[in-house]
Structure formats: structure tokens, C-alpha cells
């Protein structure tokens, strides 16, 4: 009979779950309706304020009281989103005037649970509340959120920091990530840095100053960021590319940099990589791709040699680069026809593809 009791207990809990689910459906519906209702109230109140030159103190007081509650903040967000579409300039000025309210809310949201706390930096980023205005209490609070193990909280806080545009705080945030060692995808760091709203020049300078303090998990996205940001980092990239003691992932990243930005002093080293019979084939493969940005007779010769490499990716990238350099298929196919099946196969494919693309362009 004890078995039955256990099953009855399970039954009761599951029935409770169904009731919970059904109640949830109603609660969610009611919540949505409440947010809609509050949003209408906010719309009228905010529209009044938008008529004035400055936001009045009474309104700020009202917002301080209301926005500390998450449901009101959600309604406020919905309202601003709507009004922003109608009149972005006015909303931007309105937000700037509310700076003191958001400073106050920073403290209130720091006391909330991590899911609710993460919503606040989302609002800061979305409406660029403190853009160009690095208020230390806000920055400190955001840096605290960067320390959180919760990925979304960390990412929302980082996004808010990028939107504020203070280079120092971004560097500190990266140091925290580095120190904590928790996984934060390289793509998120790179894209985040690219969205930085302050002076990129200052940020870059600071990042290079502390570059060696970071581990690979931060260095790698930083190099990707520099690659997408500008061609002003060639010297530093060259030193990374040529440093045989450096981590190979970073060296690959540096080679990719020179594929994007032509830098003549790098060319000799690229030729060396192409000729070197290193056990790590990636050097040759990435170099084969990079050489497509350096048109010259010698480059063509090197690439033709790479076409016969035993590695498939090296041949693939070399044929791609030759195509980008405008080398005619007929010029080289005879050289390989019958001698190197792999090379001629790859070239034939490139040739077919080129024809296919040009046919498409003609049709269009």
C-alpha cells in the first residue's frame, strides 16, 4: 500500500502543476493587460512632459516611486519604445533629463534578484541613458553585475557599459571577465566592443596598454575586434604574427588581419609561412587566403605552388586567392592538366563558379 501512497503523492503534485500552469496562463494574461493599462497611463503622463522644455521634479518623483517596481518598469519600457518611434529626438532629451531618476534606480535594482537586476542595464543600453556621462555609482554597479555568474546579467551589464562609452570602465570589465574566467563567447566580446559609443581611439590605446595582462580567451576577441575596427593596428599585429612564442590562435588572427588590410612589411613573412612545411597546416591555409590581397607576380607563383599542396584547405584557399587576383584559368590550367589532379580539379571548380556567377550577373 505504500506504493499507492507514493503514486498518490505524485498525482497530487502533478495535479498541482496543472493548476499552476492554468493559473499561470491567467496570471500572464492579467499581467499583460496590466502592463498595457499602465503603459496607457505612462503615455499620457510622458506626453505632457514632452511638451515642456524640462521634465518637472514632480514627474521625476513619480517615476522614482513607480519605476522601482519591475512591472512598472516594463510598462515604462513599452511606452518609451512606442513614443520613440513617433519622436526620437524628444524622447532622447527626455531620457537625458531623467538621469538622476536612473541613478536612484541603480541602487534599487542592485537589491533585486539577478533576473530582475539584469533588466536594468538592458534599459540603460536600450535608451542610452548615460551615454557619454560616466557616473561612478552607476559604473560601479554595472561592474558588480559583470561579476555575476549569470551570463545574461553579465552581458546586459557589458552592453550598458559599451553604450555609456567610458573606455576605462570597459577595460575594467574585461579585466573582471579575465579574472573570473567564466565563459563569455568571443563573438559577444568582439561585437560588444565594436558597438562602443565613446572614442574608439582612446579605447584602443587602453586595450593595447593592458593587452598582455589578459588570457587567450580575452586576447582572441580583442584581436578580432581590432581586425574589424580599422587598419591602424598593423605594427602590433605584425609583432604578434612574427613572434614564434606567441599562441598560435593569436598568430592566425594576426595573419587574418593582414588579409583584410594590405601591409607590405608583412608580405615577406607571409611568403615564409606559405613555404614553411610546418606540422600545423593552418598557417599555410590562412596565409593562402591572405595572399589574395597582395597582387604581384611573386604572389601568383607562391599561390600556384600552394595549389599542389597536400592539404585540401590550402589548395582551396590558394585557388580562391588566385581567382581574386584575377588570374585567368586558362593561364594556369595547362600547367596542371595531367600533372596534378587535385590542383586542376580545384581550378576547374573555381572556373565553373566564376562562369556561373558572371552568368547570373548578366541575367540580372
Amino acid at each position, binding site marked *: 500500500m505504500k506504493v499507492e501512497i507514493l503514486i498518490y503523492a505524485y*498525482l497530487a503534485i502533478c495535479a498541482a502543476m496543472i493548476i499552476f*500552469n492554468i493559473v499561470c496562463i491567467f496570471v500572464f494574461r492579467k499581467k499583460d493587460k496590466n502592463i498595457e493599462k499602465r503603459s496607457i497611463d505612462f503615455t499620457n503622463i510622458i506626453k505632457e512632459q514632452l511638451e515642456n522644455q524640462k521634465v518637472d521634479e514632480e514627474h521625476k518623483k513619480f517615476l522614482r516611486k513607480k519605476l522601482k517596481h519591475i512591472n512598472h518598469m516594463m510598462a515604462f519600457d513599452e511606452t518609451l519604445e512606442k513614443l520613440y518611434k513617433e519622436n526620437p529626438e524628444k524622447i532622447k532629451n527626455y531620457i537625458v533629463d531623467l538621469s538622476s531618476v536612473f541613478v536612484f534606480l541603480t541602487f534599487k535594482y542592485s537589491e533585486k534578484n539577478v533576473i530582475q537586476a539584469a533588466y536594468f542595464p538592458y534599459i540603460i543600453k536600450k535608451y542610452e541613458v548615460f551615454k557619454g556621462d560616466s557616473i561612478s555609482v552607476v559604473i560601479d554597479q554595472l561592474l558588480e553585475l559583470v561579476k555575476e555568474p549569470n551570463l545574461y546579467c553579465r552581458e546586459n551589464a557589458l552592453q550598458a557599459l559599451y553604450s555609456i562609452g567610458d573606455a576605462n570602465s570597459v577595460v575594467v570589465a574585461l579585466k573582471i571577465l579575465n579574472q573570473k574566467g567564466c565563459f563569455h563567447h568571443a563573438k*559577444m566580446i568582439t561585437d560588444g566592443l565594436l558597438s562602443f559609443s565613446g572614442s574608439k581611439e582612446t579605447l584602443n590605446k587602453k586595450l593595447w596598454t593592458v593587452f598582455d595582462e589578459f588570457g587567450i580567451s580575452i586576447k582572441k576577441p580583442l584581436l578580432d575586434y581590432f581586425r574589424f575596427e580599422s587598419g591602424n593596428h598593423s605594427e602590433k599585429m605584425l609583432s604578434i604574427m612574427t613572434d614564434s612564442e606567441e599562441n598560435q590562435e593569436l598568430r592566425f588572427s594576426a595573419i587574418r588581419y593582414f588579409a583584410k588590410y594590405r601591409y607590405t612589411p608583412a608580405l615577406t613573412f607571409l611568403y615564409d609561412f606559405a613555404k614553411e612545411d610546418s606540422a600545423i597546416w593552418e598557417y599555410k591555409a590562412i596565409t593562402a587566403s591572405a595572399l589574395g590581397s597582395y597582387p604581384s607576380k611573386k604572389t601568383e607563383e607562391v599561390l600556384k605552388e600552394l595549389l599542389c599542396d597536400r592539404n585540401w584547405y590550402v589548395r582551396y584557399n590558394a585557388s580562391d586567392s588566385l581567382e581574386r587576383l584575377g588570374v585567368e584559368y586558362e593561364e594556369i590550367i595547362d600547367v596542371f592538366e595531367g600533372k596534378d589532379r587535385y590542383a586542376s580539379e580545384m581550378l576547374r571548380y573555381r572556373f565553373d563558379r566564376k562562369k556561373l556567377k558572371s552568368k547570373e550577373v548578366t541575367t540580372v
Partner: protein
Amino acid sequence: MISDDAFMIVKTILDYINVFFVIYLIGYSSFLFLAVVIGSSELYKKRQQEKLKNTLLQNYYVPISIIVPAYNEEVTVVQTVKSLLALEYNLYEVVVVDDGSKDRTSQKLIDAFDMQPIRRPVHRKIGCQPEEFVYESVSEKVPLTLIRKKNGGKADSLNMGINACKYPYFICMDADSVLQYDSLSKIVRPLMEQENIVAVGGVVRPANSVTLDHGRVLDYQLPQNILACMQVLEYDRSFLASRILFDKFNGSLIISGAFGLFKKDVVIAAGGYDHSTMGEDMELVVKLHEYCTLNEIPYCVKYATDAICWSQAPEKLKDLCKQRKRWHLGLFQSMWKHKVMLFNAKFGAVSFVSFFYFLLYELLSPFIEIFGVITMLLAFVFDLINIPFMLLFFAIYAVFGCILTLTAFFARTHTIDLKISAKDAFKAILLCFFEITCLRFVMAFVRSTAFFGYKKKRLNWGRIERKKINIK
């Protein structure tokens, strides 16, 4: 009349069998209970997080190759590729592998997408049948490739797709399925959130009676067909429940062949899809567990609860039986091939929880259930059965199963913002009872007969009748 001694022997045996069944059912009920409670709360938490923007708000584009193996799919293949080209994602390619179809699968694609022949070398990293021709199209939003190869089965086609695709992650899917518009951005999310991910499973939902427009659900209702309708309930229970629970300890052993994402280099290193098994999807995931663990490679298999693929559920009992037999054989072959994982401390919870669960409650369950029925008959013959207690036990079991199914159904429906009508809610309540008490037993019988004539069907694609999904 039998002697007292014989009667005592039978009674003792039946007593032991009783104890076994009590433990077996407690184990199963506890597992389902845990799975549904955890799955349901996980979905609730996820919804809360999304409301409060605790999610990755930017679109991060991880390059993906979508591999569509096709065999005699002339009815659905063009529609499938069209839906793939309409996905809201920026960085992907589509590779269709025609496994030597006897119908006009390739020609339909060539005509519909103005594809051109190309002499493309394929890098053979995994063994597969040779290609007959390759066509490409550059006029679409993303690169589209068609490879026709000699017939070799689904696993062989997938291996060809892996060889030919160019991106570091690939998605395998069925040629009769439709991906929801945001499914790619949803399935790559786990890659952003956690490191060392080698595979991510998506959610497969029956598309019978669902209307889609550019991958968006326009109208959702339970299928008219009772069999398909019961499968909706079954899918919800299994996807919501067990998969979320297994996900908690990296213990997922199944990623549906209809929608899963894999890291290409790890799959290649592990040897790709196995041609010799029928359940190549399960076999691959089990193989990845084994390969990564034995080679001490840190890895993770995840489940994306919001990445949705709409697929056809069989509407005929014959087709359903065929499908389930195939799945069961695939399960057996995968488990047998990787039996080293059973009760092996190296594999931790994957061995002692997931693998053991699949052995006891999936692979052996049809036999155990049939054995249970035989035992009841035997007990009845010897007048050793307490009929009121047996009926009560059945009733409790049925109600418990129904409640679990409904918990999964309602949790899933309300947490992914699908509106269901009162009529459908009522239908679900009514049909879940039949699903538990009838379909389940029929399927147990079908699965127990799966081994008859399996050698003959080894490389068979296991066809079921194809219909177009309702797309506007």
C-alpha cells in the same frame, strides 16, 4: 489439479515478479514525475527570463550548413528548400543530397531554383558513396547545392553532406520538415552561452493541421486525425519531459534526425554517421558521448527548447508502426554498439542514468510490458490475482500518465505562446487517456516485433506516406 508444491512454486515466482514490477513502475513513475516537474519549471523560468530580457538580444551569426538528405522526395523537396531559403538568418548554406532517388527529386530542384551543373571536388573526410553530379545555384539568398550520389542510405547521404558543406557547424534535417523562421538563431544560442558544445537538439513538433507562412505559425490546432493527435501529446511529453531533464546533466542520448546541430570537426573525428544502423541520429549522439569521454575531450550536448522544426506525424497506423519499429531497432543497434557505456563510471551520469533509462524503460519496456500481461494471465489461472487491486492499480497508472501528459501539453503550449482553443484543450484531455491506455500498448507490441526481418530493411529509408505541410 496441480499439487500444493507446484502451486507454492508458482506463487513464489509470482511474488518475486510482483516485487520487480512494483520497483519497475515506481522507478518509471518517479522518473516521469521528476522529468515533467523539472521540464515544466524550466520552461516557466525561461519565459520569465525572456520577459525580463535575460536573453541574448543581439543576433550572433554562427555559420551553419543545412544538410537535407532526400530519397524519392519529389512531392516535398522544393517546398522544404523554399522554406529553408526563407529563414531569418544571415550566414548559412543549404546542401541537398539526393541519395539516388528513383523519382524526379533532383530535376524538381534543378528546375525550381535554376541550378547549374558544376565540377565541384568533394573533400572526402568520411567515407560515402560517390557523387554522380553536383549542381549549384548562386541566384538565391544563400548558397544552394545539390549533390546526387549513388544510393547508400540516409546515414551515407548525411556523410556526403558533411564532406561537401563548408561551415564549421551543420544541421541535419528531414526533407519533409519545415524549420520555424527563427529556428536557426535559436539553435545557435547554446553555442554562445556555453563552451565545448558539440551538439544541440531542436524540438520536433507534428505539423499536421498547423498552417505556416514563411516559417511562422498562422494557425495552430490539434490534428483532426486521432492518431496524429495522440502523437502530438506523446511528442510534447517526451520532448518537454525527458529531454530537459537529461539536458541538466549533459545526458541527452537522442537528437532527432529531423532537427539537430553538430560541430563538424568533432563529428568527423568520431567517424560521422554509421551506415550500418537504422537509428543513425541516436547512434551519432551516443558515439559523440563515447568518443569525447574516452579521448578526454570536454564536451556538452544541449537541447534548445525554443528551436522548432515542424514535421509530419504519420496518420496511418501502418506508417506509425513502421516508424516505431525502425526507431526501436535503431535504439537497439546504437545501444548494442556502444554497450561499453553501460554501468561504466567513466561516463558518469550518462551511463548510470541516461543509458540505463534507455535500456530499461525504452529498449526493454515492450518486452517487460508484454511479460507483465502474461504474468497477469498466469496469476488469473492460479487464482492469485486480486482483481479490484489490479483495476485500482491500472486506474492510478492511467490517471497518473494522463496528468503527466496534460502537464507537459499545457506547459508547452502556454510557455511558447501558442494559443489553443477550448475545443482542443478538451480533445487533449480526452485523447491522453486513449494514448496511455491503448496506443501505448499497441506500440509496445509493435516495438517488440521490430526484430523480425530487420536484416532485410537495414539500409531502407523507412518510407511513410508523404504529404505537403500546410504552408501559405
